[in-house]
């Protein structure tokens, strides 16, 4: 059996500074890493440390991988210092994925905010690769300010697909910045969505407070608990249910998640913390 702690080295071939605090590393692993959209990997900076991140590229691509990282702590500070040509390490993939087969023929709602857009970009790019399988995709994306919006080219590119509706909102527009789209927290976009909520799936990923109130809003709109897919962020340290840091009651976020349905985990303690 292979060593689960094994690190696959990767070379950074490009870096996209998405916003002041968020950048996307574009990596070429020494050997292809096949994953399913929604799964996560552990990204190591040699001699510094590692952290869990979700690839933000399509799962149909395995020779290169995009990883979008927000500067928020010790390891991510170093992720924001690396340069093109540097070597980083990857472990994984780990965890569960979005059940694409359950989305087929459905109107899918995707609700995301901030750095939570990273796995959703992966999901979206994977979906549009086989767009004919899905009835429609409504993607609601939030950010704090226009400057904090990530995947900036995406708005125009992603709108190209006839079955896709991509709507953005920012919480506020500071003086000196301009914004021609919606203003308000991303959940304020929900009333604009008209779709049959009783049988269609919704995917949520973002900061904990957004996940919490987004989920409650979806439930109020009539989405069913088992059709709401959450990407949970806990401290996934090892990736395979050994270190126990990400335990949520009887579940491990790393092994039984990160993709859970709300029905699965609604009674677990510390869900939204």
């Amino acid at each position, binding site marked *: 059996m292979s*060593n689960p702690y094994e690190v696959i080295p990767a070379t950074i071939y490009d870096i996209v500074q998405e916003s002041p605090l968020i950048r996307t590393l574009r990596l070429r692993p020494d050997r292809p890493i096949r994953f399913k959209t929604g799964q996560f990997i552990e990204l190591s900076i040699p001699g510094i*440390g590692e*952290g869990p991140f979700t690839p933000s590229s399509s799962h149909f691509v395995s020779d290169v991988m995009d990883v979008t990282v927000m500067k928020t702590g010790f390891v991510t500070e170093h992720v924001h210092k690396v340069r093109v040509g540097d070597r980083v390490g990857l472990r994984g993939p780990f965890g569960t994925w979005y059940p694409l087969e359950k989305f087929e023929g459905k109107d899918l709602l995707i609700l995301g905010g901030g750095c939570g857009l990273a796995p959703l970009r992966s999901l979206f790019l994977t979906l549009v690769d086989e767009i004919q399988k899905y009835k429609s995709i409504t993607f609601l994306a939030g950010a704090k300010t226009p400057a904090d919006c990530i995947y900036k080219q995406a708005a125009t590119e992603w709108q190209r697909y006839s079955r896709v509706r991509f709507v953005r909102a920012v919480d506020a527009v500071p003086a000196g910045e301009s914004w021609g789209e919606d203003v308000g927290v991303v959940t304020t976009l929900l009333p604009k969505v008209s779709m049959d909520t009783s049988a269609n799936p919704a995917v949520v990923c973002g900061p904990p407070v957004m996940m919490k109130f987004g989920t409650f809003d979806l439930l109020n709109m009539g989405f069913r608990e088992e059709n709401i897919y959450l990407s949970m962020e806990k401290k996934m340290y090892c990736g395979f249910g050994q*270190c126990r840091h990400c335990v949520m009651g009887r579940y491990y976020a790393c092994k039984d998640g990160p993709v859970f349905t709300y029905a699965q985990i609604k009674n677990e303690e510390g869900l939204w913390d």
Partner: protein
Amino acid sequence: MIIKVDDVMAFLRSSALAESDLFKEVILPLRLKVGDKEVFFLARLDGSDSYFLDGYRAVDPIKVLFYGAREQVFPVAAKPVRRLIAGVKACDLKALQLLDRALINKDFVDPAYKVWRDSTTILSVDCTEAGPACHCTLVGGKPYSEEGFDLNLSRIGDRYVLKAGSEKGRELLDVIKCTTEAVDVDAQAEKAVLEGRAKMTELVQNQNSDFRRSEEYTGLRGGDLSVWGQESRQCVGCGACTNICPTCYCLILNEEGGSDTFVKVRSYDSCQWQGYARVAGGASPRPRMRQRFRNRYLCKFLYMPSNFQTLGCTGCGRCTEACPGQIDFRTVVRDVLEAPPPEPENPLGPNAQERREI
């Protein structure tokens, strides 16, 4: 098979000799006086005379011999060494069964743990004494082993009754037979073993008669958070209880490579430490001590059973002994279970009150 105690010790000594090709390392309990107490430490067999197979469990759990406090796991540094660990008590053996399920399963095999596990022979011994904090009988345990060992020793007078529990154990028994004087187990010896075991079980039961048994522990989850606050007021969050627990295996994985190499080292972590479950950005599901304190109990009695179909507590009492705040596990469980039930559940969730306090 029945063998004299002195002969078993002589065999262990001879198997630890450099020229013996049986084992490269023999580890067994050393009996030492610390203050006015006699305690046991796991030690490598050498010239000392203070080795003592009986008694009760050692200060350190045998976890430390299979799952190091700090171990390089990529590239794997553990090299198999044929070793014998003797004098293992039932509580530690039971803990090893939980660790086996956690660290060697269909989804995951910890490479270092597997190396140590595969290269070790375990010789367990029935308890002949009970430590002041011993409480295996409260959590479904017994002061003697019925499974999980390669070879088990039950003391009757100045002799041991030996029983093999695995192929490795049967082979070892054959080797012992060749070098020592052994007689077959008769009905009288079997009866003596049962009597000794019953006596020990009674002893542990008696010293814990004031405390609650694990069948009732599912009630821990419903307990009022304020009771946990009361119980944890002496807790300084040092993590001694989790580090010394024979079933705690939470780890930190450190990256200790150079500029272009990757080296992964795992060390013990503790759910009692504040940074344990903290995620990027600073949020934590358990920011307060009382929540982390409670988490350890729920992990042992609710989460681990649902993960591994066995309690996370073997009743060794090390957490109680190691606690600088003198918190007795058994008293906490009793107090929480006996506290009046909390007010009807708040619709905002079980931690709603806690949130308001923060």
